[in-house]
C-alpha cells in the first residue's frame, strides 16, 4: 500500500492513505487540549505521547480512500467502520484549501461535496498538493464520463481527459479589496455608530464619570478598530482573488494565509444574491454571492456551499451574470411592485409593536415613551422605502426577488434549479389578500422569497414555477 501515489494515475483502484503528516496534525489539534488535562492529572508526558500519538496514528492508518473509475470510496474508523461511496456523477463542488502551515509543508485539504447533508461530503485532509490537484482534475473529468461510457467493459482503461483551458473572467486588485473592506456592511454600521458617538458620550459621561470628550474619543477609537479589523479580514480572505471559467466550471481562487480553490459547475449554481449598502452604492459597487447545493450550513472552514465575489462594479454585473449562467446576455429584470396593501402592511408591521410599547412606556416612564414613539414614527418612511424596493420578476430562465431599505438585495434563482414552492399566509395577511412566497432550492437552508405578494400572483407562481423547472 502506498502513501504518495504517482500523481498522474489517480484512477488505479487501490486503497491509499492521506499524507502521513495528517496523523501528526490530527495529534497536534486533538492533543494540546488533552495535554493540559493529562499533565495536571499527574500522568507522565511520555505516557501521554505514546497513547494519543498512537491513537492518532492508528486513526490515520485506518482511513483509506480508493479512486475508482466511477466513484470515490473512503473507508474510515477503527472500531466502527464507515464506508463512504461518492459517485463522481453526483459531485456538486470541489474545494482545495491550503492553510499557511499546509503551504509550508506542501500539503492541501481536498473536499468533495455532493448535494445535501454533511454525510455527502468527503474530506481528504491532508494530501500532498500534486495528489490533491490531480485527484481534483480526475473527479471533475469523470463527472460526465460516468454517464456516457457506463457500458465500458474495461473501466480501468479510462484516462484523464485533457484539462480544459481556463479563462480568467475576473480578478480583484488590492486597492479594490480595501474598498470592499471599507464599504462592508460592518463599516456602514460603524459609521452610524460614529454619528451617534457624540450625543451618547454627552448623555452618559456624567453617569460613567468620564469627561464627554474622552468618552467620544474612546468610542471613535473603538469604531476605528472595528473598521480596521473588518478591512484586514476582507483583505486576508480575498487576497489574490481570481474567478475563471474552464469549460462549464467556475473556478475561484482566493486567500492570503489560507488559499481556497473552489470548482463549481455553473449549471449547479442554485441561487445568486447581489447586495449592496448605501456606501457601496455611492461607489457604484456591489457584492455577489452564489450558492451550490453543497452541504447545508457552516462547519469548520466556513460555509462551504457559498462562494462570494466581495466587490464588483455595478456596470460589470450583466456581463458577469451572463458568464455565470452560461447565457448570451443578461439584463437586470424589471421588478413588479407588490400591491399597495403590502405598503400599508409594511408600515403597520414596522410601527404597531413599537407604538404599543410607547403607549405602555408613556404611562410608566414618559421620557422613554416619547423616545419610543419617535422611533416608531421612523417606521413609516422605513416601511414606504421597503415597499418601494420590494418586488419580483420572472423571466424565461430566472426568478428574481428584490428587497431591502439600506442594504439592497436582489435574489436570483434559476428556474431549472427550483425544487418546490410554498406560500404561507398569516391571519393578518388573509384579511388583505396577501401572502408570503418562498422557493425551496437544493442545499441552502434559506429559501429565497418575498413577503406580502398578492394571493393571486403568488398562487400562480407557486403552481407554475416548480413545474416549469422540468421543461
Amino acid at each position: 500500500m502506498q502513501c504518495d501515489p504517482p500523481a498522474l494515475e489517480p484512477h488505479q483502484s487501490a486503497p491509499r492513505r492521506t499524507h502521513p503528516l495528517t496523523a501528526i496534525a490530527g495529534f497536534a489539534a486533538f492533543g494540546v487540549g488533552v495535554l493540559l488535562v493529562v499533565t495536571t492529572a499527574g500522568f507522565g508526558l511520555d505516557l501521554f505521547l505514546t497513547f494519543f500519538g498512537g491513537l492518532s496514528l492508528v486513526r490515520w492508518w485506518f482511513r483509506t480512500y480508493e479512486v475508482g473509475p466511477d466513484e470515490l470510496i473512503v473507508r474510515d474508523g477503527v472500531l466502527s467502520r464507515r464506508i463512504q461511496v461518492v459517485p463522481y456523477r453526483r459531485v456538486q463542488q470541489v474545494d482545495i484549501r491550503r492553510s499557511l502551515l499546509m503551504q509550508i509543508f506542501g500539503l492541501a485539504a481536498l473536499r468533495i461535496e455532493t448535494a445535501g447533508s454533511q454525510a455527502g461530503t468527503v474530506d481528504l485532509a491532508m494530501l500532498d498538493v500534486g495528489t490533491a490537484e490531480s485527484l481534483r482534475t480526475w473527479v471533475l473529468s469523470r463527472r460526465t464520463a460516468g454517464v456516457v461510457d457506463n457500458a465500458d467493459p474495461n473501466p480501468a482503461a479510462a484516462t484523464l481527459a485533457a484539462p480544459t483551458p481556463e479563462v480568467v473572467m475576473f480578478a480583484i486588485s488590492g486597492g479594490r479589496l480595501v474598498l470592499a473592506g471599507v464599504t462592508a456592511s460592518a463599516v456602514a454600521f460603524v459609521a452610524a455608530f460614529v454619528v451617534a458617538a457624540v450625543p451618547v458620550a454627552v448623555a452618559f459621561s456624567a453617569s460613567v464619570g468620564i469627561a464627554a470628550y474622552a468618552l467620544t474619543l474612546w468610542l471613535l477609537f473603538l469604531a476605528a478598530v472595528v473598521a480596521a479589523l473588518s478591512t484586514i479580514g476582507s483583505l486576508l480572505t480575498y487576497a489574490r482573488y481570481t474567478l475563471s471559467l474552464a469549460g462549464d466550471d467556475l473556478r475561484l481562487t482566493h486567500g492570503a494565509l489560507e488559499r481556497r480553490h473552489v470548482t463549481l459547475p455553473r449549471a449547479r449554481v442554485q441561487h445568486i444574491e447581489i447586495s449592496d449598502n448605501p456606501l457601496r452604492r455611492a461607489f457604484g459597487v456591489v457584492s455577489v454571492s452564489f450558492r451550490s447545493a453543497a452541504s447545508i450550513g457552516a462547519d469548520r472552514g466556513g460555509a462551504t456551499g457559498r462562494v462570494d465575489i466581495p466587490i464588483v462594479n455595478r456596470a460589470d454585473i450583466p456581463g458577469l451574470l451572463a458568464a455565470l449562467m452560461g447565457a448570451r446576455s443578461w439584463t437586470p429584470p424589471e421588478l413588479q411592485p407588490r400591491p399597495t396593501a403590502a405598503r400599508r402592511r409594511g408600515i403597520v408591521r414596522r410601527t404597531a409593536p413599537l407604538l404599543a410599547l410607547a403607549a405602555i412606556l408613556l404611562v410608566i416612564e414618559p421620557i422613554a415613551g416619547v423616545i419610543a414613539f419617535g422611533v416608531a414614527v421612523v417606521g413609516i418612511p422605513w416601511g414606504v422605502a421597503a415597499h418601494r424596493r420590494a418586488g419580483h420578476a420572472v423571466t424565461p430562465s430566472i426568478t428574481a426577488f428584490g428587497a431591502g431599505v439600506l442594504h439592497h438585495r436582489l435574489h436570483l434563482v434559476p428556474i431549472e434549479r427550483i425544487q418546490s414552492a410554498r406560500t404561507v399566509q398569516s391571519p393578518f395577511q388573509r384579511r388583505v389578500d396577501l401572502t408570503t412566497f418562498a422557493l425551496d432550492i437544493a442545499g441552502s437552508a434559506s429559501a429565497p422569497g418575498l413577503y406580502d405578494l398578492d394571493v393571486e400572483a403568488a398562487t400562480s407562481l407557486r403552481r407554475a414555477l416548480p413545474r416549469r423547472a422540468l421543461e
Partner: protein
Amino acid sequence: MNTRANDLLDGTEQQLDPKIAIVWAVGSAAPPLFLTIAAVVTILAVDAPEWMLGVALFGGVALTLAGVVWARMAWARWRWTAWPDAVELRHGVLRVHESVVPYHRIQQIDIVRDPLERVLGLSSVILRTASASSDAKIPGLPEATADGLRRRLLTLAGVDDAV
C-alpha cells in the same frame, strides 16, 4: 376515499383520514392533561387554598379542550391534491401553508408510522427533495393509500440527481 393508486393522480382534492385528528388531539391535549393532574395532586397534597384547585382545574380542562378542538380544525383544513406532475398541499389553522412539489424533484419517499398511527392503521408519506425546506409531508393516510401512493410516485421520481 379512493384507495386505488392509479386514480390518485387525477387532480381531485383529498382530505386526510379523520382518525388523524385523534393522533393530533392526543399529541396536543396530553401535555396539558398531565400537567393538570400533576397540579391538582400537588395542590391537594400541600393543602393549598381551594381557589387554586379551581384555577388549575379550569385552566387545565380549557387547554386540553383547546388541544382537541385545534386537532379537529387542523384535520378539517388539510387538503392534498395529486396532479399527474406534482402534489399540492394546503394546511394550517392560523397560518395557512400551501406548497407544490413536482414529482421529478423527489429524491426519496419515506413512510412513517408512529405507535398510535399503527394502532389506527395510518401512515405519513414524506416526499423528500434536495431542499431541506420543502414542505411535502402528507400525514394521516390509510396504510394502503400510502403504500400505493409511494409505489406510484417512485416511478415518477427524479431519474438523475435532480439538483
